[in-house]
């Protein structure tokens, strides 16, 4: 108790020095909290964009469809998977899909395209596709009088085939029964942008795609949404268990978007290096101040030791001093960073040049708030300051009273 009291008093004996040390620690706290907040915030933002854009939180396929897609690796809509998904409380929504490739013809030109069949209603409830419609209407019109389905095309398709809303697009591919799939569709909407990943995609209503590819009642993929991307692994385990079929593979977005996930993780490691540098600078500052204060108080420690103070107590006092100072600075840093992080979380910085991360456009840098984001910097700063102050503390504890007092 006495040690704590002494330590606390010592902080206020040299106010200017304490203020400077406190500033470097408080500043460091704000910097760390901000960095962590922005890193977490940005990534959660991107993950949200990626998962709601297309991927979903969890995907279900037949066998190794993800690694080696094939038209025959299908799931049957009537196989019970849909009932299981509907009855699983942690599943928020889900959407069936069919994928294929084909040749598209406009009036004069042709181009290879990717053909995706989606259920208009379920897809809309699951991903952000509805919001990506730039021109025309989202699958609003059913089959028209000529028996043509309305489809949505990416901008690349529209540009290459010189198509606009209302035009006819001809698709040719091969069906799952070996037949030559060929049909005419009407362009009902343009989706995405000129750089988005779906620029060479044609979206067909699911039943039109099933008909086109001769795969009635079958799909290639289910995209499933749960409450949050971080729940993906959990849901994967749950779904794998309830589907309980070795031929059906359930994968979380971390597996589906493995490239993105890995580059994100690598980037996070890079950020840790930055944070390490910040901490290192703080440590040097702290070490410097503590060394100075110990040196300055050599006589004082000499007296303390001479009157019989335990050497460990001297050490503890010095470390306690710095820990108390650290906690105080962090408290002030916390108060200062609160509005800052609040702003970043709710407003964020709009980037002048949007970043394209694996096809996902990311244009606003936002932060995140949470207990961890405020506590982790405290632990890092106070912990490293305490660790660093061991050196001067040991030094102080090893002072010989005689030498200290004789000013040699």
């Amino acid at each position, binding site marked *: 108790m006495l040690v704590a009291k002494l330590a606390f008093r010592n902080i206020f004996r040299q106010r200017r020095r304490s203020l400077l040390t406190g500033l470097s620690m408080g500043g460091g706290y704000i910097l760390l909290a901000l960095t962590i907040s922005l890193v977490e915030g940005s990534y959660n933002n991107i993950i949200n964009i990626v998962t709601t854009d297309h991927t979903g939180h969890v995907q279900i396929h037949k066998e190794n469809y993800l690694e080696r897609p094939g038209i025959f690796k299908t799931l049957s809509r009537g196989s019970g998977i849909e009932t299981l998904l509907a009855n699983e409380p942690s599943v928020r929504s889900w959407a069936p899909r069919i994928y294929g490739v084909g040749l598209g013809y406009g009036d004069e030109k042709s181009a290879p395209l990717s053909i995706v069949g989606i259920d208009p209603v379920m897809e809309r409830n699951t991903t952000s596709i509805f919001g990506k419609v730039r021109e025309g209407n989202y699958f609003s019109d059913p089959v028209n009088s000529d028996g043509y389905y309305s489809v949505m095309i990416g901008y690349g398709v529209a540009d290459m085939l010189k198509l606009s809303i209302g035009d006819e697009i001809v698709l*040719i591919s*091969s*069906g799952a*029964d*070996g*037949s*030559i799939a060929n049909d*005419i569709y009407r362009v009902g909407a343009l989706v995405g942008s000129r750089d988005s990943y779906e620029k060479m995609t044609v979206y067909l209503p699911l039943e039109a795609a099933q008909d086109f590819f001769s795969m009635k009642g079958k799909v290639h993929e289910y995209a499933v949404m749960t409450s949050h991307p971080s729940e993906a692994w959990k849901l994967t385990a749950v779904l794998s268990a309830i589907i309980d079929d070795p031929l059906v593979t359930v994968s979380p977005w971390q597996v589906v978007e493995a490239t993105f996930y890995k580059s994100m993780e690598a980037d996070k490691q890079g950020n840790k290096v930055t944070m390490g540098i910040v901490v290192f600078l703080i440590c040097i500052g702290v070490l410097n101040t503590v060394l100075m204060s110990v040196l300055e108080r050599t006589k004082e420690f000499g007296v303390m030791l001479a009157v019989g103070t335990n050497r460990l107590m001297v050490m503890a006092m010095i470390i306690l001093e710095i820990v108390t100072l650290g906690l105080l600075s962090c408290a002030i840093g916390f108060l200062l960073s609160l509005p800052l992080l609040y702003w970043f979380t709710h407003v964020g910085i709009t980037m002048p040049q949007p970043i394209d991360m694996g096809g996902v456009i990311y244009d606003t840098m936002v932060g995140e708030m949470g207990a961890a984001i405020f506590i982790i910097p405290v632990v890092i700063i106070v912990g490293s300051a305490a660790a660093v102050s061991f050196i001067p503390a040991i030094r102080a504890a090893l002072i010989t009273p005689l030498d200290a007092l004789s000013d040699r």
Partner: protein
Amino acid sequence: MTKYITLGLLLFSLPMSWFLTAENLVTDTSANEEKAKKLIQQVDDMYRSTASRATMTMRVQTPNYERSMTMESYTIGEEKMLIRILAPKKERGISTLKLDEEMWNFFPKINKTIKVPPSMMMGSWMGSDFTNDDLVKETSLTDDYALSLDESGEIYVITLIPRAQTVTVWDKIIIKMNKENYTPIEQAFYDEKNRKVRVMSYREPKQFGGVILPSVLEMVPLNKKGHKTLVLYDKLELNAEGVEEDLFTLRSLKRRLR
């Protein structure tokens, strides 16, 4: 003899057309090749006058699907062929026209005629185990192969080896025939590593307008497990009337089936 050749021509001109190009063969003085050549010459003359009309069923079997198509075909000589799919409904009217070494597919649903590019020649014809090349290139294939006839066994065995300048995926083709009536038995295709890649066999001889011909052709690609294509002749008319030159035009290809 002639009868068998005619059948071959009717179907994708594949089976027997090695007979048909005797004039291009390098003249070999060996007796058996001379004999083969003579045989071929005769057949060739007969064949050129033939126009045919046929209705057939094609059954494609794969591990993933099985399907059956009914189609009619018209041929004049070996250079001209028109095939129209009659059933199933989804594919009704899809037609293929072959003129010499060129080939077009017509899709009535989208009203488009698409020329089969050279790069697609080894691609499957209508999802079967026959390639587009089987329909088109057979003529030049025989032009470009050297023949050798082996009479020593119970059956004729004719080996085709590509000439040096020939561009082909086959390293060797072996054709087996019955000796007594010259019926074809089987045709085997070998790749560059001398592996048997696919076999076409001729089965179930049937009477077609006074002529007996194998009515079933079976193509089995040996490198694709579980794949098989059968062609069954339902009707066959030789020297058919009404099969005229003007049937084999792009305009005629686009005529829709009712």
